């Protein structure tokens, strides 16, 4: 017999709490990506086959730099949350599930950092 109250036990156990945050952020990033993606695709389409000068000047425009950094950050956040759920659902073995989850997170952070730093390098003229 435990002397702890049922509430005390419930508070320390179970999925309640964190899952809601995951769910909410997945939707929040989805909503943020609606305008960001439309802007990004329209920009890319209007620069189809553009030369280096055009693209680097576009990237160095302050508003474009801000939007691109936000876009990359939100995109990889959303992608990481999505892939995490897919891994949790389809990888049944505990060991490989953890490996894939950690690997996915590392790769997402690496790609996000690489993308943002690339944009900033162009923006600051490095």
């Amino acid at each position, binding site marked *: 017999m435990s002397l702890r109250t049922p509430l005390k036990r419930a508070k320390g156990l179970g999925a309640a709490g964190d899952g809601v945050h995951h769910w909410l952020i997945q*939707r929040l990033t989805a909503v943020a990506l*609606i305008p960001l993606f439309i802007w990004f695709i329209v920009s890319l389409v209007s620069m*189809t086959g553009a030369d280096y000068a055009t693209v680097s000047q576009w*990237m160095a425009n302050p508003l474009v730099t801000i939007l691109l950094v936000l876009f*990359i950050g939100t995109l990889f956040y959303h*992608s990481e949350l999505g892939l995490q759920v897919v891994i949790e*659902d389809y990888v*049944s073995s505990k060991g490989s599930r953890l490996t894939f989850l950690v690997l996915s997170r590392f790769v997402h952070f690496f790609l996000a950092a690489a993308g943002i730093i690339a944009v900033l390098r162009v923006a600051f003229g490095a």
Partner: protein
Amino acid sequence: MAAENRPVSPHLQIYRFMWTMALSILHRITGVFLTIGTIFLVYWLVSVAAGPTAYATAQELIASWPGRLLLFGWTLAFWYHFCNGLRHLFWDAGQGLDLGAARLSGYLAVAAAVLLTLLTWYAAYATHGGVL
């Protein structure tokens, strides 16, 4: 049953095939496919940072026929994931959950995705006079 061997969701074998279920799994498939696409997006961004030579190589890769095929696939996957994602957001708000509405919005999402993909590529070709 040992915890390791328990079945994980969803149990595909026990459901009768439905249109809405195909669209549901397609949302995940396109999502994973788009995640792979982000590697190429970052490669393109890095090529701009690396300078004109690297950028020219990236543009050449994109303009090659496998490059265009992949890009077309990602365009279609993106617009589908976008349209179906809107469906999900409406469902999350408690809208359009009955069977008829869910089926109809499914057809609409697929049709819109195809149309937006064609429109995107038409606009891209028009921008550059037919050469990517």
